């Protein structure tokens, strides 16, 4: 099971380690600087941290020695002459894909970028940026649309599925040359009725994949939870308790029926229902849910868990969850019980086991 976690916050990156005293801060990096997302690439054990300086814009750093030393690598960037002359506002997602050393980055605005040299250089995936439907995309969470979920098929590196808020779910089977929308079954309650089922305006807040059964995908959408068993060709809505609204979802790496969601009250009130932080878990593909509460705040809590604020390790037993008010919880029993970190952290943007 994982014994290290990377916690990306508004004021730096924190590396947590599991010790005899529990999960404690082993090191911190980039103090005072927003870190929007971090990635541990298990293939070469490199760690990537995406910074978003208030003054100097987004930057990307990599460590090859577990965080002891960092080097600034190239930042994904929209090339000159790119349609609409966009400027990258932040790196919103990072994923390992393809050969070792290949990294995919999702941005705001919603560009998908690829590096084949561990971040030394980046190339915009033009075909996705140039889809005609991009004209329909709009911001969800930030002013402009962004790529927040990148799923690289472990069976075939040319098969990539990304989710965009608000721009739908897109799939390529040829390493990015052609892209197709995969939103059948999703709907948008926030749009006029005529556009409810339009594909390119869907707002999947977060999309997760079962590693052992990559055709099984889960979405926490703006107005519901959905599951697909055919790689996104068809989505089925789930009926969870507490609330359909939320941002985060984590998929069990080995059990295609198990996933975790963190409900919140509504889009108009982005806070826990009744001041209680809970996690919804299903073991049967979303037919039924348990609401997990042990060790989580039971009253007066205003923690919101962002879309990258929940992760599960490769065993499916350990979970980590971080909130916008700096709450950080770990579970070692699949979410049955949680322990809060005593650290009083900055607002948490993203967590990941490493």
């Amino acid at each position, binding site marked *: 099971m994982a014994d290290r976690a990377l916690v990306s916050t508004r004021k730096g990156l924190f590396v947590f380690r599991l010790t005899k005293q529990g999960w404690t801060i082993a090191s911190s990096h980039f103090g005072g600087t927003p870190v929007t997302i971090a990635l541990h690439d298990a293939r070469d054990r490199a760690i990537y941290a995406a910074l978003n300086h*208030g*003054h100097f814009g987004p930057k990307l750093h990599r460590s090859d020695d577990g965080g002891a030393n960092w080097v600034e690598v190239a930042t994904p960037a929209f090339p*000159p002459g790119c349609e609409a002359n966009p400027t990258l506002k932040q790196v919103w997602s990072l994923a390992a894909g393809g050969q070792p050393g290949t990294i995919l980055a999702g941005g705001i605005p919603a560009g998908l970028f690829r590096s084949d040299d561990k971040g030394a250089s980046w190339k915009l995936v033009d075909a996705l940026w140039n889809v005609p439907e991009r004209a329909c995309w709009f911001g969800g969470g930030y002013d402009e649309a962004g790529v927040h979920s990148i799923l690289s098929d472990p069976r075939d590196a040319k098969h990539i599925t990304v989710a965009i808020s608000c721009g739908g779910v897109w799939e390529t089977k040829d390493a990015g040359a052609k892209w197709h929308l995969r939103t059948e079954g999703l709907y948008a309650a926030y749009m006029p009725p005529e556009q409810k089922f339009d594909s390119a305006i869907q707002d999947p807040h977060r999309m997760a994949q079962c590693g052992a059964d990559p055709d099984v995908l889960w979405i926490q959408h703006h107005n519901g939870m959905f599951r697909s068993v055919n790689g996104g060709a068809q989505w089925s809505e789930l009926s969870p308790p507490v609330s359909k609204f939320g941002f985060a979802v984590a998929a069990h790496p080995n059990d295609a029926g198990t996933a975790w969601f963190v409900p919140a009250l509504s889009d108009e009130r982005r806070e826990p229902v009744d001041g209680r932080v809970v996690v919804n878990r299903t073991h049967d593909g979303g037919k039924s849910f348990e609401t997990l509460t042990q060790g989580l705040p039971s009253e007066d809590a205003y923690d919101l868990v962002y879309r990258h604020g929940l992760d599960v390790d490769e065993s499916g037993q350990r979970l980590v969850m971080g909130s916008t008010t700096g709450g950080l919880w770990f579970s070692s029993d699949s979410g049955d019980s949680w322990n809060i970190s005593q650290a009083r952290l900055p607002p948490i943007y993203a967590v990941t086991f490493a």
Partner: protein
Amino acid sequence: MEVDGATIGDALVSIFLKCPQARGYVLDEQGVLRKHVCIFLDGERLANDVALAAPLRKTSEIYVMQALSGG
């Protein structure tokens, strides 16, 4: 640093040749001055949309500053 240039943009290009990594901290990838970076020329703050084209004297002094941002 002392550099030559007819405009602030020219002067910055000279600096970026010596220190390529600085470019992305001052300008975005489209060559626009970053929103929260501001430039003072001979003691006067310039608006971001005209700063790069501002002409220089031989002895002009340029400050590239961080504008206040966030908390």
